[in-house]
């Protein structure tokens, strides 16, 4: 992780030295967005040049959402952050590097694309996994990363919690359900990609809890003859947010281009890029066009069920929180 930070820093230094384009932006993002931002950056650079006549070069840095957030907090000069969950940007805001109401600066909670949590199972679904209830059955082995280190894993955990709460209505039973689910987890990787590798390449586990886009990517990469996606009856609406890092863009004088970069997400052509990379678009027209790519699922938001990220983080993932209590005994 330190190495990753150093690499990112080295990237910034090289970017500063080379300075080929009129503008250079550093986008610090999370793990599974590599392919998405390769496409998006290319489209934005072309659109920006057409409109202003200036060139822009976008550097990418990827890693676990939490460690990327920490790198920016500790001084990585990111112009924009595009992370897995709002809490990780809140943590940067608490340092005073960007304004605390950052989530209001762009439409739809500053989340231009959304995703959800689905199940990836082995071909033929040998354990007959249909919904969350099947995950707590004895003998079913579930792969998810560690919610302490992975943003995706926190969405996994909260999706399971939200399902159980809806079904049982009581907090105790919900806790019991999530506890049983994690009893079935044989490996806790530190990041979403790590878990995908454990499930896909190492052959461990019967079901992988994954980002919808990550599940589609695994199928695209390894073939429909190996894995299937199972969509549960209920899941969480994951809103990966984007934000301009105020103190950095003001210092570097890149505010205009950084804001244009993020606003470009809300254009129909960008929404199509999201949809093609299996992120759910916000634009209703684009959503209709790509409806076949995304299964219908009953989605709840973190604000509905958990009262927002700050509260969820404190109750569930802080030291001594519900997640730690699950592993106490």
């Amino acid at each position: 992780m330190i190495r990753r930070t150093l690499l990112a820093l080295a990237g910034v230094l090289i970017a500063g030295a080379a300075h080929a384009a009129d503008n250079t932006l550093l986008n610090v993002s999370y793990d599974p967005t590599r392919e998405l931002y390769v496409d998006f950056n290319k489209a934005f650079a072309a659109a920006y040049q057409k409109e202003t006549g200036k060139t822009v070069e976008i550097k990418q840095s990827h890693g676990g959402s939490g460690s990327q957030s920490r790198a920016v907090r500790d001084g990585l000069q990111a112009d924009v952050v595009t992370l897995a969950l709002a809490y990780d940007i809140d943590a940067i805001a608490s340092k005073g590097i960007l304004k605390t109401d950052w989530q209001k600066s762009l439409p739809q909670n500053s989340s231009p694309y959304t995703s959800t949590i689905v199940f990836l199972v082995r071909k033929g679904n040998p354990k007959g996994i249909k919904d969350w209830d099947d995950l707590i059955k004895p003998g079913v082995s579930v792969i998810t990363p560690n919610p302490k280190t992975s943003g995706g894993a926190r969405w996994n955990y909260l999706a399971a919690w939200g399902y159980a709460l809806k079904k049982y209505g009581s907090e105790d039973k919900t806790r019991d359900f999530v506890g049983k689910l994690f009893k079935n987890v044989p490996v806790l990787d530190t990041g979403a990609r790590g878990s995908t590798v454990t499930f896909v390449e190492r052959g461990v586990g019967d079901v992988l809890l994954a980002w919808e886009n990550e599940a589609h990517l695994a199928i695209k990469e390894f073939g429909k003859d190996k894995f299937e996606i199972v969509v549960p009856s209920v899941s969480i609406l994951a809103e990966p947010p984007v934000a301009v890092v105020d103190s950095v863009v003001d210092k570097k004088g890149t505010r205009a281009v950084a804001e244009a970069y993020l606003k470009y997400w809300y254009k129909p052509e960008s929404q199509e890029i999201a949809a093609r990379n299996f992120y759910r678009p916000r634009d209703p027209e684009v959503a209709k066009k790509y409806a076949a790519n995304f299964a219908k699922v009953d989605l709840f938001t973190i604000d509905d069920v958990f009262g927002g990220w700050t509260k969820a983080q404190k109750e569930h993932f802080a030291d001594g929180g519900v997640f730690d209590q699950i592993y106490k005994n």
Partner: protein
Amino acid sequence: MAPLTRRSVLPGFGLTLGLTLAWLSILILIPLASLFLKTTELSLQEFIASVTSHRVLHALSVSFGIAFAAALVNLAAGVLVVWALVRYRFPGRRIFDAIVDIPFALPTAVAGIALSALFAQNGWLGAPLAKLGIKVAFTPLGIFIAMIFIGIPFVVRTVQPVLADLEPELEEAASSLGARRWQVITRVILPSLTPAILTGFALAFARAVGEYGSVIFIAGNLPNVSEIAPLLIVIRLSEFRYADATAIAVVMLVVAFLIIFAINRIQRWAQTRGVVSYSVT
């Protein structure tokens, strides 16, 4: 008491000492001091509560316990490897000699991924072992394997030059004086090798205690089962609890220092004993 600066035949004592101190301070002492300083954000009670929680103690015992066991295995296996490489001539010896260094050079993440691919239940070694009911990858046994892998060159490279310098004539002399084979090994060879073996053991152990990259891919990382202390430090950092993270680091540092210090004492003792047994025989 001896004066601090004794006149030496070599010039430049002040200069070299100054450079040494400056260099060590920048690279080691200042970062370590800042580590300790960060920990002082916790009160003593908080510090004790933080590092004596069940989970932290378990992670520390996993890291230190398995590192110690792995270093013991490396000690035995390493000495055998050295013996074969130094004392015999066989085809491919140079290649084997070079292979020993690979764990030094290989990025630890690559080692971890390779080992977990090999020992996973669908891997070349993992599949037959799984049939026997032995699970290696994603269990504490996996941590053990990874720590053996990264530690072996430390023992080999510290013992090898010492054994190479040990004249075979010494052994011949011993046997011509009536020593049996076993006596030659225990009375002549091992005493001279012991200091180097202990150094190799200490290095392999120290490296394994702090190992993160290769272990993380094969460990399983379940709290209270296969969670190593360095991972717990990373988890604490993810919770933005820097002081608690450094608290674990400080405990690791102090324990590791004490163990290595103890090994050094044993080494010193073995060295003097080795000299004595020479003069007797």
